[in-house]
């Protein structure tokens, strides 16, 4: 079986690895460089904490389990590659108002019902785990399962593993259209570097997936949702956990009509602290935006006043692949045979990548899936276009 994957971000890379290791002949077509877009413009949080019970949490739990096994698996597959910096450091969600605190407790309760470890902490317990959290906090929940990776390195490692299993990664290759047979089935792609044949085509083009689907004659509503991050200079001071403010959950689930901010703080292996982030649907505009940085900084200082003197040396933005119901599309196009999607993971594509790859590979091969795939189908009712 011959599969063409469009896009060498983490989703395309994870699909390529899984498929090529099941004996599928895989070629990735990437218009720029591998990992040159969203997958190198965000953080590498692998979170359960921000997800309410439902299909996304199921996919996240499934994926997290796969992530835990990846470092050892990759060591077998590609030897001593640069570390992907997988670290199960746990997350700490901090509420600073009574309202947030009530919402957080409720969410944690529901998550526990779905099998997530979520422990409600007092102020003292919280400060013991993370002494620099603002003493004006009201409550916190500790999520020991939350983890992180270095997403760019992880994607390159997945690609290296796919290559070792026979996959090809063609960079500087822009997909311009599809080739069809008489029945309308997709049998290949046209690119700036000639035509390619395939039995199946997978769109894993991140926030450009909607655009690419249209170009191929399919239907997919996935577009960009911009986010800024700030990076400090390397600091001696380490934040032991990933620390979020409780409205993070609300922002993640929001509809994106207006600009949202939610604080995420984490130390990286290199000693820098990543400070996130904003969310807004403004197209692919990457111009600097001091007001957005200011808002991110103000919230971060509120959550962790000790960071006030940290020096910010860099700001960068990326475009989360936004799907209107906040769920990725993993499965076939609703009309066009041979056309598949693995797209729309929004702010969780790093976390959800391994599970996405497993699901899509099973669907392609007509094999049973480990978790239900229907919630991610392009035919689900929540994607039906509102007038």
């Amino acid at each position, binding site marked *: 079986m011959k599969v063409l994957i469009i896009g060498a971000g983490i989703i395309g890379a994870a699909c390529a690895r899984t498929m090529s290791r099941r004996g599928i002949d895989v070629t990735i077509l990437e218009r*720029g*460089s*591998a*990992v*040159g877009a969203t997958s*190198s413009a965000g953080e590498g949080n692998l979170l359960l904490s921000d997800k309410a019970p439902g299909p996304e949490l199921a996919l996240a739990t499934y994926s997290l389990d796969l992530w835990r096994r990846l470092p050892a698996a990759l060591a077998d597959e*590609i030897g001593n*590659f*640069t570390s992907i910096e997988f670290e199960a450091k746990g997350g700490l969600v901090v509420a600073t108002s009574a309202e947030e605190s009530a919402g957080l407790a409720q969410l944690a309760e529901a998550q526990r019902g779905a099998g997530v470890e979520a422990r409600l902490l007092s102020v003292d317990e919280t400060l013991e785990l993370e002494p620099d959290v603002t003493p004006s906090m009201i409550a916190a929940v500790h999520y020991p399962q939350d983890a992180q990776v*270095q997403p*760019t*390195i992880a*994607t*390159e490692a997945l*690609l*290296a593993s796919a*290559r070792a299993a026979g996959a090809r*990664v063609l*960079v*500087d290759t822009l997909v311009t259209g599809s080739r069809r047979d008489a029945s309308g089935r997709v049998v290949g792609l046209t690119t700036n570097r000639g035509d390619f044949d395939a039995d199946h085509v997978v769109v894993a083009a991140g926030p450009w997936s909607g655009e690419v689907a249209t170009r191929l004659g399919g239907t997919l509503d996935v577009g960009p949702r911009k986010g800024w991050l*700030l990076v*400090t*200079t*390397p600091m001696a001071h380490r934040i032991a956990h990933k620390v979020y403010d409780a409205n993070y959950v609300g922002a993640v689930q929001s509809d994106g009509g*207006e*600009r949202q*901010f939610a604080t995420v703080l984490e130390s990286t292996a*290199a000693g*820098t602290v990543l*400070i996130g982030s904003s969310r*807004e649907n*403004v197209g692919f505009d990457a*111009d*600097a*935006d*001091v*007001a957005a*940085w*200011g*808002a991110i*900084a*103000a919230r*971060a*200082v509120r959550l962790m006043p000790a*960071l*006030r*003197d*940290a*020096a*910010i*040396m*860099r*700001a*960068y933005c990326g475009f989360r692949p936004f799907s209107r119901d906040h769920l990725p599309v993993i499965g076939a196009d609703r009309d066009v045979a041979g056309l598949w999607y693995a797209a729309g993971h929004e702010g969780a594509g790093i976390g959800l990548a391994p599970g996405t790859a497993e699901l899509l590979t099973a669907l392609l091969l007509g094999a049973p899936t480990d978790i239900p795939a229907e919630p991610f189908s392009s035919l689900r009712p929540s994607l039906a276009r509102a007038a």
Partner: protein
Amino acid sequence: MTPDVLVIGAGPAGLAAARAASRVGATVALLDASDYVGGQYWRHLPASRAALDQSVLHHDWSSFLALRDEIEGDPRCDVVTSAHVVAIDGDGVHVLIGASDGRDRERRVYRAAAVVLATGAFDRALPVPGWDLPGVFTAGGAQALAKGERVAVGERVVVAGTGPFLLPVAASLGQAGSRVVGVFEASPASRLLRHWLARPWEFGATPDKVGELARYAWGQLRERVPYHVGQAVTAIHGDDHVTSVTVSTLDSSWRPLARGSRTIEVDAVCLGHGFTPRLELAIAAGSRLSAQRFVEVDADQRTSATPYFAAGEITGIGGVDLALAEGAIAGHVAARGRADDLELRHARHARHALVRFATRIDAAHAIGSNWSTWLTPATIVCRCEDVTFGDLLRVSRQSRATGLRSLKLLSRAGLGPCQGRVCGRSVEALLEVRAPGGHLTGGSTMDRRPISTPVRLGELATWTTPEVRKP
């Protein structure tokens, strides 16, 4: 803050732009991050500490004084030193005023009718085994110590690299009390002759240039500083400080030849391999860059992004006279001066001759394609993150990555506090030739830095504006 013309950078180009803009009646704000105007070129001691006659250190000191005095005495021109431009966005030019590592500095947003970017360049040094030892300086850094602090970097010093800049650096070191035991120009004699001596009539149009160079050449002879061409410092030795260097004879691609290498005992080394333009603000403004990675400008020094102009080294490395001419044009046009102005015509005429001259110097001192042959796997290439040449080779081979972002994150080169300002161009060049296909893809470079100078989180936290943007 709404001056007619905002000028960023108070080196020769920025000073000339501010003067030209003010002369045609515009209100001007002139910003510079350092404590004094003058830029890299006219770096000097603060008046309180000036012991010697500055004109000994600066042969064109009087033109600087005239320019500075006119601007500082000009009621239409607001000169703001210690002004750090943090970012440029759709709202304006965001500036912090105070010490570079200060906290709670004053914040200003400039929204000017026109902006002249004159952010200059910083000097570049190619990596050399041992260049991370104490006692190794960039040529510009050593000159700044000599001119600005009157500090000699060592007793026995070599200056190595490429470009006419090496000569004034050697002269400054001599004046500060060092003994310069050799100046090593990597470019081979054949190339120097071809470009320097071709079309000699062009020199006629640039009398200042010729005078300047003649003065340096004479100064070198008088001081008996041996000037060698086609040679380079290819290794620097010492345990906890420089004690000696290996000097090698190079072929035309800068590959060391087997014969002709020797060791020289020194206690300081100055390396200079041209300049890297400071592009981040121009990029943030949306200005297009040329293939050679300078800011593209039209005949009026206008960039592709309205209302931004650019002058001086960010449009091409051309020296002080060209910077003055470009600044004068940019300031005049930015302030909407008359097109038939006499001074404007003089400046255009000077620029025309000087650009051709600069192009030739550039060609004469182009960096050889095989300089990396003098590296060893243990040579540090990124000093912030301690990344070696061997690390670059390993990640490139293992990942087969062609994207700069991947290669940076895999190796950590360029991710430290200098954000690739020091190592960026060299790291890119080293990775480029090793990438599968022989080039990097995706078009990203280390020049894009939306935050152009570090800012404290607490300072940034006061920069909030409404969280919901109006449609």
